């Protein structure tokens, strides 16, 4: 006797086929997103744009790149949220940087120019800080556990448990890994411009002109 699977009448062969194709491509799409998120979070991918050198260079000198333990945090470990949906969303939002990069190459500002990227660094830093703050430093906490921060000073652990009890990592540690940028509240554009001008040996006022051209 043959056993026949009795499917509801609306499950036609076509429907079955569509479900199969849809299911497989859906899984494929999720797998693709996972792979995509993974790849686009890597240092290799992030630094494929020259404009990223301004953040990549200090990163490569930092403790997050060269820790005693050998546990390296890559770009995405800090700057991309966990979970496929959040990670994809972060990349989607981050896509505007790619657009700006490409647009810049055509009509300016050219972010591959180290002066341009140095001049725009503070705004990028402010955006990154606010990203961390909104997520309550979630990516930091993937690795760092407040209770386990012992530091080099005897009271580092106590400070973290008592004085930083209600603080998010980014509240204090907003100048990690990359080049130091003042807090948004005390940031002075003119002073930043003057510093970049002197670093690149530019004439006074060049930075302001460059910034105006970019707007």
């Amino acid at each position, binding site marked *: 006797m043959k056993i026949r699977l009795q499917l509801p009448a609306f499950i036609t062969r076509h429907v079955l086929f569509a479900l199969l194709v849809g299911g497989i491509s859906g899984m494929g799409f999720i797998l693709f997103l996972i792979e995509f998120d993974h790849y686009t979070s890597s240092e290799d991918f992030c630094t494929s744009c020259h404009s990223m050198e301004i953040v990549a260079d200090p990163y490569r000198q930092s403790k997050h790149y060269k820790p005693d333990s050998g546990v390296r945090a890559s770009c995405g470990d800090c700057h991309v949220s966990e979970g496929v949906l959040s990670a994809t969303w972060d990349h989607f939002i981050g896509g505007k940087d790619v657009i700006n990069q490409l647009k810049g190459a055509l009509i300016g500002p050219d972010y591959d120019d180290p002066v341009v990227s140095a001049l725009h660094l503070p705004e990028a830093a402010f955006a990154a800080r606010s990203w961390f703050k909104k997520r309550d430093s979630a990516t930091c906490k993937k690795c760092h556990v407040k209770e386990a921060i012992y530091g080099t*000073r005897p*009271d580092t652990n*106590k*400070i973290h448990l*008592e*004085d930083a009890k209600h603080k998010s990592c980014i*509240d*204090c540690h907003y100048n990690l890994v990359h*080049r*130091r*940028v*003042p*807090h948004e*509240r*005390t*940031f*002075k554009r003119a*002073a*930043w*411009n*003057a*510093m*970049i001008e002197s670093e690149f040996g530019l004439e006074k006022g060049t930075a302001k002109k460059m910034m105006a051209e970019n707007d």
Partner: protein
Amino acid sequence: MKPYLQTSFSVLILLITLLSSTSVLAAKVTVDSSSWGSDEGKACVDCHSKSSAGLTHQWKNSAHAVANVNCLDCHQAYEEDVDAIEHEGSIIATIVSPKDCGRCHTQEFKQQKGSVHTRALTIIKNRMPALSEHFGSPSINDAGCAKCHGSEVKVRGDGTLDPASWPNSGIGRINPDGSVGSCSSCHGRHQFSKAQAREPQACIYCHSGPDSPDKSIYESSRHGIMYEAHKKDMNMDSDQWVVGKDYSAAPTCVTCHMGAAGKMKSTHDVGMRDSWNLNEAVSKQQYLVIFADGSKRELSTSEPIPRRGESISKMDGSMGKVKAVASPKRRRGAMTKVCLECHSKGFSNNAMLQFDNVVELFNEKYGKPAQAIMQQLYSDDLLTPLPFDEPIEVTYWNLWHTSGTMARHGAAMGSPSMTWKGMSEVGSNFYGKFLKQIRGVAGKQKGDALIKKYINDSEHHDWLNHPEKGNPVPGFGQGISHED
């Protein structure tokens, strides 16, 4: 008549100067106590007693802590301040400038603002590199010179302080807020003790070594010896510190240069009582010119005495209206008032006369002729304008600066050994090196002519004209009588 003896209106002027001084007590803070003790600042202490326990412990033992003055009362800043940084949610500045301290310590700030100490950097800013960088490099300037004279603190575009200019607590430091000086030069952070600032050690941090050998001078003076023996009786912690009332064991630097004595008030204008400039190639008596805006400058008595209301250049080069002028005689008068708490008038005046005579001697015998010869060598293009590239310039520098300063300061503060050490070094340098180098630079003929004009023909050096005269100086064979 010497110009500084012109009394004219200088009596009145000194009165103004002195009246602008503070009471015999450390000036009472008149700011209402509700303006400090910020709640936000109390939180600093919890964390800092862990992260920097020593610093916090010092503060806990300070008068500030007792008066409820906390971290943020001093370190608060506005977002727009050039050196403002965000720290744990507060806007602060690392450097607490005299202007910041002056928010409460108004009297002290006012006096300090016009003092010679605040000119410690401006006065030598353009001259400093010649010495520090020719003999060293800019790093010597940052770690040496500027530690006393002060740095011009630079705030970088990323909000950090330029490490070449900070840390620095030099007394003439130019601060990011435009104010000049550093209270912690004398009142060490974070205890800001009165007693510490009254110790000679507070001054010795800078006033020692070749530029200002006052440590060795004070220690080898009667005053310093008494201090060493009676330290425990100095009552340094006393709120009021009037010599003759609160202590008498010995005078420290503060006693004479700043301290309250009798009816004379204490002052944070440290150079106010100095009548001479002892750190120049030729010493001159100095007027103290007080401008309408409270700033001050010294003016040599070789310049015409400025009149009240007249406009003359200030230290920073801008013009200022003269409010008052204190003559060197009046300045000396103020200094002598301190002496009188322990010594008689005659004793004090004679001691001052002995000091003045050494300065005059240095000026006439060495300072002026050496200066005249050097000027001649420069104007005849026998020396390049660049300082210290010719050995005679080094000799000349050591002559008036290093040794000359030692002799003059030694006489000012009663150290016979340092007075003689300085003057004998000046002499050794002058006769042993300088004269030879003049001939080396100018050639024998021209050199001899210069030496004759400025040296041999001067009564001070007349002994050179009598080579036949022997003298039984120990170690020399000539002139010793062999009869006994």
